[in-house]
């Protein structure tokens, strides 16, 4: 079936199998491999992207029913190529080790701040609970988000 996806401000007209998930289309068809497949079952958050600014799990989203504008990790740098303040904060606070959960963490964190759910460490603990990190970078991730939220 034919469907148009708007990804990082650009329209992509695609012929899709109804079974194609947004995650697989981003990675395999559009070569936007920044979004990661961690569990593919909606349990880890590594596949988090923004749909009309709201954080969703791209592994559970059928591409053919996706209607909102998608923002991926590739789409948050400025047009001048400057890193997003959340990316700067993650680097400053060493909020990653292997980096696999990191794109999902960053997009989830950007939405968390927009939602005004990053006002305290406890708040961040609760509102970032959909993003797992097996390297346990959590304390530094929280510090990065608190930092970015305050600027």
């Amino acid at each position, binding site marked *: *079936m034919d469907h148009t996806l708007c990804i990082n401000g650009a329209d992509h007209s695609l012929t899709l*199998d*109804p*079974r194609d*998930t947004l995650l697989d289309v981003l990675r395999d068809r559009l070569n936007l491999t920044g979004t990661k497949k961690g569990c*593919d*079952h*909606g349990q880890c*958050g590594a596949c*988090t992207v923004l*749909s009309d600014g*709201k*954080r*969703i*799990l791209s*592994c*559970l*989203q*059928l591409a*053919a*029913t996706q*209607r909102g504008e998608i923002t991926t990790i590739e789409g948050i740098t400025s047009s001048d190529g400057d890193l997003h303040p959340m990316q700067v904060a993650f680097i400053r606070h060493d909020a990653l080790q292997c980096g696999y959960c990191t794109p999902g963490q960053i997009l*989830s964190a950007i*939405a*968390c701040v927009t*939602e005004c*759910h990053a006002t305290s460490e406890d708040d961040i*603990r*609760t*509102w970032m*609970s*959909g*993003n797992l990190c097996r390297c346990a970078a959590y304390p530094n991730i929280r510090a990065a988000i608190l930092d970015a939220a305050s600027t």
Partner: protein
Amino acid sequence: MTPFTLTDTPSGQPGETLLAGGTTLIDLMKLGTLTPTRLIDLTQRRDELSGIHEDGPNLFIGALTTMADMADHSLIAARYPLVRSALLQSASPQIRNMATIGGNLLQRTRCSYFRDPASPCNKRHPGSGCGAMGGDARGLAILGTSAFCIANYPGDLAVALLAVDADVEIETPAGTHRSIPLAELHRLPGPSPEIETTLTPGEIITAITLPVGDHRRSAYLKIRDRASYAFALASAAVTLTLAPDGTVNRCAIALGGLATKPWRATAAEQWLMGRCIDEGTALNTGQLAVEGAVATPDQDFKIALGARTVARAILNAAEGKLEH
């Protein structure tokens, strides 16, 4: 996933299922647990079937409203704080942005034998047996079970909605409408655990309605292995009002995690009526709420856990504390 046609027109044929947020359905289709051949894309009707508005003194919630939007709504926070609390203790922010109220009510069990297509499961494949009996039943039901199935209903929202006497609005394939109390939506497994609700094929939940009520003393307490992003081992929704002399003159108690469907503890409610709340009466109420529980050795701890969860929720509600 096995192949399917995606469409917006129901045909009423077998093998057809509804797609809303997809957070349960797509997960189970990827496992091969569910293999529908036609998906009806309900999101095409999002504008028509989502939104929250007052309906006289009652509150009307469109079934395609997301969990996040319902939790964030000022009237839910003001009038039904235990429902907001249940929503915010469910799933994750990402899932709540996708998942709908109607879909959430109809979520499937997390029983690993149901989810695994290679396991015997009378719910997924009638007559094939039950892998949970004699297997790992720790997270499964101790109330409402049958010889055919011990799978528990895992959701939180339905439990809180049960305690506030919600109704479910249903659209039939013929386009007519009917309304039932939420208490009549889910079925006990009995000899046919594959039939989970009283909905007939092709029926769609279009909305829930919440009757006006005093929920200033209410709580939704969820006890689980992790502090977040985990299903309930035991949960309790409590809402009550006190007479001037401090005795309970209205109460509703519903259990989650422990039963095969959202569970109203009516005998426990009746006992608590007219009594003052203290640790003793709260615990006695809790014990009545789990009376009749049938537990395997690895489930045994949940009888006391369930009783204490109800007790703590009653104490929290009486104080006006929403959670723990």
